[in-house]
């Protein structure tokens, strides 16, 4: 069963905030190792969509499966899904009272019950991979935005997720730091990680994504490989959106 199940499968997903219909009949299947970039105007529901994938937001209709596990309202299913899914936030959300290393080892020690030494080895391995092992003893407040976001990526990787969610990972960064984060993400993509990225970085989408999803008003408007998406958009709204940002 798990052999053939896609990494993430959303089917007929609907969500409301009060009376506001924020996700409308969303269907999306993400295969293993596939890289999806989700874009769209602000308020289009793209962040809400990926926050539904790890249960930070609850959907009200439809089904969400992650690696074959259905996300129901039950806490057990949410816990099971979160073991498979890592997430990187727009504002990093590093734990301000812990060092970089402690940020990375907290979940392995307390969720996976890993020994401290093993967790630290693991964390140093990932800090190496995002090229900031020398910052392990610093506190988040002492780091630049780009460095903080790379720590956030390492922190998520320490839980060995099968799927990574990125919620506008570069929109809170100064321009000169965007590249270091995108490079880290691209490297992760080359390593075969399944990724769902909400981003406005169209260069990244063109280079890394297997498919680009365009959302507006809570709906998926168009899904296409990047070359087709950027060069031959079909839907009028996609065309309008692309003409504004490119």
């Amino acid at each position: 069963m798990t052999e053939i199940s896609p990494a993430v499968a959303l089917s007929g997903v609907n969500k409301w905030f009060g009376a506001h219909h924020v996700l409308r009949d969303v269907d999306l299947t993400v295969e293993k190792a596939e890289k999806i970039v989700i874009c769209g105007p602000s308020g289009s529901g793209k962040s809400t969509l990926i926050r539904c994938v790890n249960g930070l937001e609850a959907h009200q209709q439809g089904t969400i499966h992650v690696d074959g596990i259905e996300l129901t309202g039950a806490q057990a299913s949410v816990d099971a899904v979160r073991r498979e899914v890592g997430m990187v936030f727009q504002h990093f959300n590093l734990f301000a009272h812990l060092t970089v290393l402690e940020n990375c080892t907290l979940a392995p020690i307390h969720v996976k019950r890993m020994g401290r030494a093993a967790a630290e080895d693991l964390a140093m391995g990932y800090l190496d991979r995002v090229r900031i092992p020398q910052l392990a003893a610093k506190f988040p407040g002492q780091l630049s935005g780009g460095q903080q976001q790379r720590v956030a990526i390492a922190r998520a990787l320490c839980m060995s997720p099968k799927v990574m969610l990125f919620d506008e990972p570069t929109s809170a960064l100064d321009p000169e730091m965007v590249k270091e984060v995108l490079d880290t993400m691209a490297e992760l993509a080359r390593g075969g990680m399944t990724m769902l990225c909400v981003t406005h970085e169209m260069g990244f989408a063109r280079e890394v994504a297997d498919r680009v999803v365009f959302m507006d008003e809570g709906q998926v408007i168009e899904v296409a490989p990047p070359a087709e998406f950027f060069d031959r958009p079909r839907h009028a709204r996609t065309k309008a959106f692309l003409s504004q940002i490119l």
Partner: protein
Amino acid sequence: MTRFVRADLVASRAPPAAIGGPLGWLRRNLFSSRGNTLTTLAILGLLAWALPIALRFLVLDAVWTGASGDACRPEVAGRPVGACWAFIADKINYLAYGSYPAAERWRPNLALALLALAAGWMLWLGAPRRDLGALFAFVAFPVSAYLLLAGAPSLGLPSVATGLWGGFLVTMVVATVGIVFSLPLGILLALGRRSRMPVVRVLSVGFIEFWRGVPLITVLFMANVMLPLFLPGDITVDRLLRPLVGIALFASAYMAEVVRGGLQTVPKGQEEAAAALGLSHAQSLRLVVLPQALKVALPGIVNTIIGLFKDTTLVSIVGISDFIRVLETSRADPRWSAATIPATAYAFAALVYFAVCFSMARNAGFIERRLAAGERR
């Protein structure tokens, strides 16, 4: 339009030398403007007037030795008499322990040493096994201190009725019980007030608002006078325990609001990141939210603790022999009747309370700086 292209980049230079030395400091800090100069002179004048008086009373004219009030009477001593420290020296055991049996006074001393150990373990940030330290401070220490003070005949410690406890001992007991119970209870109430469960939230808000809305002195009178009316005749609650419970509940309501203020400063993203990593709600609170919230709330927590320590003097009104009460009893002793005895007693009380509160404040300041050091940008 002129065009500018920098030829040489400007290297970083040392800042110009500031006006140094003590004179420069004085001018910058005390005499920088006409208003500042006037304020400085006014304060210096006040000190010049008050300090000699205080010094003469507390030290120069003070009587240090003597066996009775005679030593502190000017007509007997043949000189002006200030503070009668001989009186304090004579009464010091009573002031410290009340009527606690002399042979058993090692027990309060040991309890105080355990208190120092608990406080040291909790407050010294580099201490090993601080999780064990918290367990000791909030579980092992209260139990063992109770057994030590009240006695446990099965362990070979004779019982000492709480009616015999007194003085600084009772003040420390009331303050420590207040702190040890109000802090955890306050944290629970603060979390309850933010709970998603309406019943928990309403109960927490109701509890907090009730205890904040009642004056402490009313609580103490209620505990002492009215509680026995509500209980069946054969159940009696210890006379010391009643105000203890009242003070702990009263302080927990204030503590809850201070902690809630701290909780509100922790961004929602912190909890979301913890949840996304798979931490349970309880783990997220314990490992991520509370450490940050309590750090922010620390000045307020210390403020509440210092207020609580001083509020313990109110128990003397409902007949508990706390430090103030034994001072009052002592100064009424006819053997020690002299003109400066009341002033001596109150000066001593002020010094003791100031010493305790000031050292708490300094300790807290030290911890705040230590906690902030790690995260300074």
